[in-house]
């Protein structure tokens, strides 16, 4: 399956990579839309995680395509960073919850120009 990648990358010819890419793009978009719509801060953080996974999936797809291990190494690092961010996000959310007794992001909008 080691297709010669001509310089011009044609999606049509290699089905599996296209599917993987489509899924990762889908994941990314879902994460983005979820981040914009959902009010709850934890859900919003999860959506950012989703976007991270979308990127990771794309990375794996390309690694597979290129038969190059560094893509997967990158994914591992993405996961670790996502974990770090999760810890930080939850710490922050707990801090906010203790302040305003609510998880909704709209509670925090008194800065900014009215």
């Amino acid at each position: 399956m080691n297709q010669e990648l001509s310089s011009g990358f044609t999606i049509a010819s290699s089905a599996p990579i296209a599917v993987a890419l489509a899924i990762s793009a889908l994941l990314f978009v879902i994460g983005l839309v979820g981040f914009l719509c959902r009010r709850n801060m934890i859900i919003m953080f999860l959506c950012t995680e989703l976007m991270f996974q979308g990127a990771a999936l794309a990375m794996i797809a390309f690694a597979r395509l290129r038969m190059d291990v560094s893509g997967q190494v990158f994914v591992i690092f993405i996961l670790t960073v996502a974990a770090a961010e999760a810890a930080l996000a939850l710490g922050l959310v707990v801090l906010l919850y203790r302040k305003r007794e609510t998880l909704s992001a709209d509670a925090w909008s008194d800065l900014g120009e009215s």
Partner: protein
Amino acid sequence: MIEAMSPQLILLAPEMILFVAAVTVAILGLSKNHGIRASLPFITCAALIASIVAVPLTWTNENAQSANLLMPMLGRFVKPLLAGIGVLLVLLSVGSVDRKLEESVARGRMAFDAHRVVRGEFYAFFLLSMMGAMLLCNAQDLIWLFLAIELVSLPTYIMVAIGGSGNRNQEAAVKYFFLGAMSTAVFLYGFALLYGSTGSLQFLEIRNALVSQSEGSGIDTLATIGIILSLLGLCFKITAVPMQFYAPDVYEGAPTHVTAFLAFVPKTAGFTAMVLILTCVGWSGHTLIDSDGIRIPYMGLPTPIAAILWMIAILTMTLGNIGALLQTSVKRMLAYSSIAHSGYLILGLIVGATDGVEALFFYLLAYGVMTTASFAALAALERRGEEINSFSDLAGLRLRHPAMAWMLAISAASLVGMPPFIGFFGKIYLFIAAFEADQFGLVLAAVLNSAISGLYYLKLAIVPLVAPPSARSEEVTSVPSRWPFIAAVLCGVGTIVLPSIAGTLVAAARSSAQSSPIVLTASESKSKSDSKTNFKGSSSGALSAAPVTAPQALPTASTH
């Protein structure tokens, strides 16, 4: 022991110092002894100064050669710049982190409780973030770049949250965190696409792949989208147009010393990252040595990337300046002004090659000094325990705090580009670089924008000096610790004195902007697999052929 370490590791000496200092500071922060807790900022300063000293010692030419970096001399200028301004930023924060807790403990109203103390962590995160920014300069591949950027931003989210007291910090933190996370995801996706199209994470290989693509039918779309997405993601760091909306709220909400930090360190990191990525894509000024050693001029950024950067520059400048006109809060106005200055800096990015990047770094130096001066002046004052925020607090400041009033005036004058100060020389050099790349439109836009910026910077200068004192400004007192005062004076003097050594600074910026020449060996276009092997040999050979460190004469007159 140092020779034994491989050149890459030696170059990381400053980061190692900072890391060790971060750990010690985190631990010392928990000690019961008030003296140790009070000395934490000074330990941080010591570490930073040590890292400044470490750079020239370790970053010698041979190390840079053998380190096989994309921009070998980048760290030699950027790291001392970061650490230097970092020292000033630490001085700003002396006495304001954990202030209420420390006071109550000092007055004995509260027993010391290790769980509540935050100062140690704050300075640890400070050092970690600084370390992240420095790591960026040694980046060799996308992973390193990604990790360094995350290392810069994660600590800043926390610093915003724990820096001061009051719920405005939390709101700023939450906004900063979530939007930061989103932008990280964006540029991560960009990296993924870039990896996909070029097949490698190593900068040098990405560059060779992109150059060979551009030799052929131009960079393919996937790579273009990848680069654009990563640039947009990084725009968050440098508060450029699509991603700059968080800046006013976060800068206003965060405590002043943290805002000062945000205004400089992430911005420098963002710009360094963008420089690295765009160097991969290759600017017109790059030296290309083809197989038989002839230098061929590289035609520069592909049009879509250049067009988008051009749009971002114009919009950032204009929105930043126009937004600042309406503000009544000083910190919010300074936020907009830092957005505007990012617009000017993107000008340097567009020009690219050595002139643009060199002007960018020199302007970053100037920007760092003058913005820190204005924030320091604000940090050194307070009104009834809270920070200075609105202009009416500053009215007639000259009567009670003449030094701070003059510092504000000087920083405002320098920010607007008034001649004898460093800001003017930064702008001049930026315009000269823009002329090198025939960007007349941009220069005109920048000139118009700095004229518009005159409106609000003049307000920042005239209100403290000339306006009659208002009721609110009567209660303005100076912060108990005198270090912010000293930092402000240092920055003010800096803006006046630095122009006199402008020549040497520009030379340093020029050397850091050199990027290693792209070497197109005849076998380049052959199959991908074996390019990796001979690549190593040829690149190192080529490197020695064109000694990078020789101060390069100005690039031959690019085709006009």
